[in-house]
């Protein structure tokens, strides 16, 4: 099918406009972070002083450390739970309560976070009254993020599991592998790449979450988004721009490296396939 000339240019223009919309605020954040004026509407020259002030900003640094801890734990836990859940959804077509299960897995994806946060907190308070623990802090934030992260990890791993050729697993079974061996030696290596993307995705989701964190954090356990949110609420704040610019830099480098690795692997795969076809 040949697209008409008009279609081609209209399509390109639409994509360009869409990307412009998506990237405009990101570029603006980086530019503002170097602005000497605290107001975004006046450009008063280049400065690094907002970055300097971050180094002495105890609140941001403490929040950042806590956020990293929570995000690391969330990513690890979400990948484990999400992989198991995806495995259940793809491999076990019938068991009692399957509909409830798949509903519960997907629901945190769309359920407003305010409701999830409220319900988790009210439960934790009730449990705390009965048992005396847990205190609100890292663990409770982790549980909340795990719920959200698990839903995303399940979607990512599930789509990969569905594309797998079941014959490879059947072959392993025929050759005498136990189900656990099949999973560790055959299935897991084939879905490894999706586990990495699920880990990274849940890590960023946790690192970014405001609503759940606010419901589930206790005194002295403030994550970085909570610090940023409380400052942003009050108005424009140049230190937030500096945080943003650093995040953008880290994310861009990560994405570029990842896409380079994936592209190289893909090329290798195509070369292998071509070589195999020739042989």
């Amino acid at each position, binding site marked *: 099918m040949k697209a008409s000339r008009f279609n081609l240019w209209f399509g390109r223009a639409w994509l360009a406009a869409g990307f412009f919309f998506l990237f*405009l605020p*990101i570029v603006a954040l980086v530019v503002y972070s170097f602005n000497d004026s605290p107001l975004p509407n006046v450009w008063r020259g280049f400065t690094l002083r907002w970055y300097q002030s971050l180094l002495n900003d105890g609140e941001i640094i403490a929040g950042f450390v806590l956020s990293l801890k929570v995000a690391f734990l969330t990513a690890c836990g979400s990948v484990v739970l999400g992989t198991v859940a995806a495995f259940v959804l793809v491999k076990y077509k019938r*068991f009692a309560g399957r509909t409830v299960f*798949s*509903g519960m897995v997907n629901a945190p994806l769309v359920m407003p976070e*305010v409701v999830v946060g*409220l*319900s988790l907190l009210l439960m934790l308070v009730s449990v705390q009254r009965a048992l005396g623990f847990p205190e609100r802090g890292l663990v409770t934030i982790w549980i909340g993020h795990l719920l959200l992260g698990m839903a995303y990890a399940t979607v990512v791993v599930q789509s990969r599991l569905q594309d797998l050729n079941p014959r490879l697993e059947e072959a392993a079974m025929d050759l005498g592998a136990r189900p656990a061996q099949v999973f560790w030696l055959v299935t897991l290596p084939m879905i490894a790449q999706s586990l990495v993307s699920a880990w*990274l995705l849940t890590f960023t989701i946790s690192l970014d979450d405001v*609503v759940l964190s606010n419901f589930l954090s206790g005194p002295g356990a403030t994550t970085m988004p909570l610090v940023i949110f409380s400052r942003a609420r009050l108005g424009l704040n140049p230190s937030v721009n500096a945080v943003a610019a650093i995040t953008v830099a880290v994310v861009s480098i990560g994405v570029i490296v990842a896409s380079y690795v994936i592209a190289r692997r893909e090329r290798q795969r195509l070369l292998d396939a071509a070589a195999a076809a020739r042989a």
Partner: protein
Amino acid sequence: MQRFKSWFTGRRLVIAVPYAFLLLFFLFPFLIVGKISVSEMEAVAFKDVITFADGVFQLTLKFGNYLYIAEDSLYFKTYLSSVHYAALTTALCLFIGYPFAYFMARARSTVQPALLMLVMLPFWTSFLLRVYAWKGLLSDGGVVAQFVIGTGIDQLLAALGLIPAPGKLMNTPFSLILGMVYTYLPFMILPLYANLSKMDLRLLEAAADLGASPWVAFWKITVPLSKAGIIAGSMLVFIPCVGEYVIPELLGGPETLMIGRVIWDEFFSNNDWPMASSVAVIMILLIIVPLAIFNKYQAEAQETVR
């Protein structure tokens, strides 16, 4: 037989782990919210719903909160305006996102991974910071504000009632909707792209052979085939938008009523936990129908993939 037995118990365990986690931390908390929404609050403790006295169990349900919500028109207005903003956001995301996903899916297959990466990139950058960036762009003198006012678009926005008067964009319905469309656009694009890129293009060739113009083929073949993607994308935008808190708080104005904010305020400012729970229960009821539709299409999409 031996193998079958161990497989069976292993299978049970594999199902039990995520199931138990979700029951404990997802379903059970909702039941507690339901319980607290009908409880009375005393100082900091709730009165028990079920009490045992003089040899009889007594069930005390207080529907006072629900009555109050029903009587106070402010709550009704808030629910209505939440749905209104969410619907408007969904429509705009679909309008921008469908052609976007379509042209992405029809781009050369070598550039598609790069385009997908570009859509995902903002996704990996903090959502909070991106929303905050709009605050700077839309505030008085911000780049976008200057452009909109310079070109006279603000007159149009004012005529549409999206801003109270020309000249001011921040903290208006306009800035709220812009922020929500911006944030949720990738949630519309990605499922649509996944759907459209899997489409069998031979169907379009067949339509062309049978004499359909590209435009007719698009409406009669492409759009109906992408129905699942449209529904999934719309639900992924609409449902979270109804309960959105962060964006209205940062970009919305005093007149932009959103239910997420009401729950938050009842809970954190008024410390009225039963009231916050009641408002939340009604919101869950409000989104349970779209949620069921979403799950149905999600399941169907998985079936067609297999």
